[in-house]
C-alpha cells in the first residue's frame, strides 16, 4: 500500500501531462477545421474535440485504452485485427531469437574464457557487430534469408538473436570469470578437470550475471523482432501494426501497438526477474 501511492501519483501526473499535450498538439487541426466550416468554437468544446479525433497527432489516453480494449478483449485472438494475435507473432519471434541469442552468447563466452585465441580476437568483433545500425542490416538479413528460401519466423528471430547475444556474451564472460584466484587454485589442488571446474564452480558463480544479461537480452530481442517485421511488407506482428499505422496515419493504432510492445517486454523481463529471484535465493546468492 505504501508503495502504491507514489506509483499512482506518478501515473496520474503522466496522464495529466499527456492530456494537456494532446490538447496542445491537436488544437491547431480543430481550429483549422472550425475556421473552414465558419464555426465559432468555445474552449470547452475545443478541448473535447482535441481528445476525440480520428487521426490525432497525439491520441488521448482514453482513446488508446479504448483501442487496446477493442483490439484485445473484443476480438477473436485468431483474427488479423486482434492485437493479441499480432503480439503473439512478435513474441514468438522474440522468444526464438532470445533463445538462440542466449545460446550463442553463452557459447561465445565459454570460448572466450577457455580459449586464449578467442579471448584475444572475438570481443572486438562482438562489439563491432553492435555498432552497425540494426535498421540498416535488418532488411539485408531478411532479403538474403528469403533468397535462401527462409521466411516467416526465422529471419525475424535471426535479427533478435543479433541484438540479444551481445549482452549475454559480455555478462557471461564477466560471470564465468567471477570465481576468485583462490577458488580456481583450490580446484587445481583437487586436480579437477576443466569440465568439473566449469560445471561446479564457474557456471554457478556466473548466475547473477547471467540473469542480469537475460533481462537486457529479452528487451533487445523484442526490439529486434519488431524491426525485423518492418521490411517484410507489414504482414503481421506489432512491427507490421506500427508500419501500417504510419502508412495510414492511424496514430491510435500506433500508440496501442507501442503499449502492447511495452507490456510484452515488461511481462517477459518480469518473468525473468521472478526466475532470477527464486534461483538465486535457492543458491544462497541473493
Amino acid at each position, binding site marked *: 500500500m505504501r508503495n502504491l501511492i507514489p506509483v499512482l501519483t506518478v501515473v496520474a501526473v503522466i496522464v495529466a501531462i499527456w492530456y494537456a499535450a494532446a490538447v496542445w498538439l491537436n488544437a491547431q487541426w480543430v481550429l483549422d477545421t472550425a475556421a473552414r466550416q465558419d464555426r465559432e468554437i468555445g474552449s470547452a468544446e475545443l478541448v473535447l474535440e482535441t481528445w476525440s479525433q480520428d487521426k490525432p497527432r497525439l491520441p488521448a489516453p482514453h482513446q488508446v485504452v479504448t483501442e487496446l480494449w477493442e483490439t484485445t478483449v473484443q476480438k477473436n485472438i485468431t483474427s488479423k485485427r486482434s492485437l493479441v494475435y499480432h503480439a503473439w507473432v512478435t513474441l514468438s519471434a522474440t522468444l526464438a531469437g532470445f533463445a538462440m541469442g542466449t545460446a550463442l552468447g553463452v557459447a561465445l563466452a565459454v570460448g572466450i574464457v577457455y580459449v586464449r585465441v578467442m579471448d584475444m580476437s572475438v570481443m572486438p568483433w562482438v562489439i563491432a557487430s553492435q555498432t552497425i545500425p540494426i535498421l540498416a542490416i535488418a532488411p539485408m538479413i531478411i532479403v538474403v534469408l528469403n533468397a535462401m528460401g527462409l521466411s516467416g519466423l526465422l529471419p525475424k528471430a535471426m535479427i533478435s538473436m543479433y541484438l540479444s547475444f551481445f549482452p549475454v556474451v559480455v555478462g557471461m564472460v564477466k560471470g564465468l570469470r567471477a570465481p576468485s584466484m583462490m577458488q580456481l*587454485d583450490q580446484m587445481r589442488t583437487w586436480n579437477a578437470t576443466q569440465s568439473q571446474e566449469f560445471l*561446479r564452480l564457474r557456471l554457478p558463480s556466473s548466475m547473477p550475471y547471467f540473469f542480469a544479461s537475460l533481462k537486457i537480452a529479452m528487451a533487445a530481442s523484442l526490439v529486434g523482432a519488431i524491426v525485423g517485421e518492418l521490411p517484410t511488407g507489414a504482414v503481421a506482428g506489432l512491427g507490421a501494426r506500427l508500419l501500417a499505422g504510419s502508412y495510414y496515419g492511424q496514430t491510435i493504432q500506433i500508440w496501442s501497438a507501442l503499449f502492447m510492445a511495452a507490456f510484452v517486454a515488461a511481462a517477459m523481463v518480469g518473468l525473468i526477474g521472478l526466475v532470477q529471484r527464486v534461483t538465486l535465493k535457492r543458491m544462497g546468492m541473493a
Partner: protein
Amino acid sequence: MTNAMPQQAETSVISAKALNLTFQTNDGPVHALRDVNLEVGKGDFVSFIGPSGCGKTTFLRVMADLEQPTSGEVLVNGVSPEAARKARAYGYVFQAAGLYPWRTIGGNIRLPLEIMGYDKATQAERVREVLELVELAGFENKYPWQLSGGMQQRASIARALAFEADILLMDEPFGALDEIVRDHLNEQLLALWARTQKTICFVTHSIPEAVYLSTKIVVMSPRPGRITDVIESPLPKERPLDIRDTPEFLEIAHRVREGLRAGHAYD
C-alpha cells in the same frame, strides 16, 4: 609409487633442495625464494613464520604445485609436486574458507569427493567422519551463511581432510579470525593432528601460534625470501593452552623473535 630415492621418501615427506623462485615483474625480478633447503618428516607439524614477502606462502604453493620453482628440487612424498597433486597427496586450506554459498556444509565437503569420483556411500561416510573430526556434526545441512567465521574455517579444514590425504598444507587459515576463536581452533587443530597423524605445514605470522602448534618452526625473512632459522620444538606433544606461560614456551618464542629480527625484516 616407486621413485629414485626410496630411502629419502621413507624419512622425508617434503624435501626441498637449493630451491629458488624468482618472479619477473615490471619493477624487475623479485626473489621470492632463495636457496631454500628443508626436510619435513612424517607426522611433523611445521610452521612457517616471517613477515609479509618472506616467501612462506610461495613455498607452500610450490609444495602444492601452484607455483613453479625457477631452480632447485622439491619432492612431496618422494615425487614431484605435480605428481603429488595429481595423486591427491595433500589437502590445502586457504586463508579464506571459500565455501560455495549454493552448497550446504555437507555439499561443500562432498565437492572434492565428487571431483575425485568417490561413490555416494563413501562420500556420505567421509562427510560424516570429518564433520565429527572438526566438531561440526549436525551442521551437514546448514548453508555457509548460517555459520560463524570460525565454523566456516573448520568446515574448510574438514573439506581438506575429506579425501584422506596424509599431508595438510595450511596457509594462514586462522588469520582472519579473532584471538579467542583462534585459540580455540589452535587447540582443536592439535587434537586433530594427534588423532589423524597427518603431516602439517602451517603458514602463520603469529609467534605464539607457531610455537604453540609446531614440532618444527621455520623462521623466514624477506628480500630475498630465505630460511634464517629452523627450530626443533622441545615442547611435549600434549599441549594445554596454558603451556604458553611456561619458561620453555617463552624461550622458544624468544628465539623465534630473535630469528625474525636477525632477518632485518623491518628495515
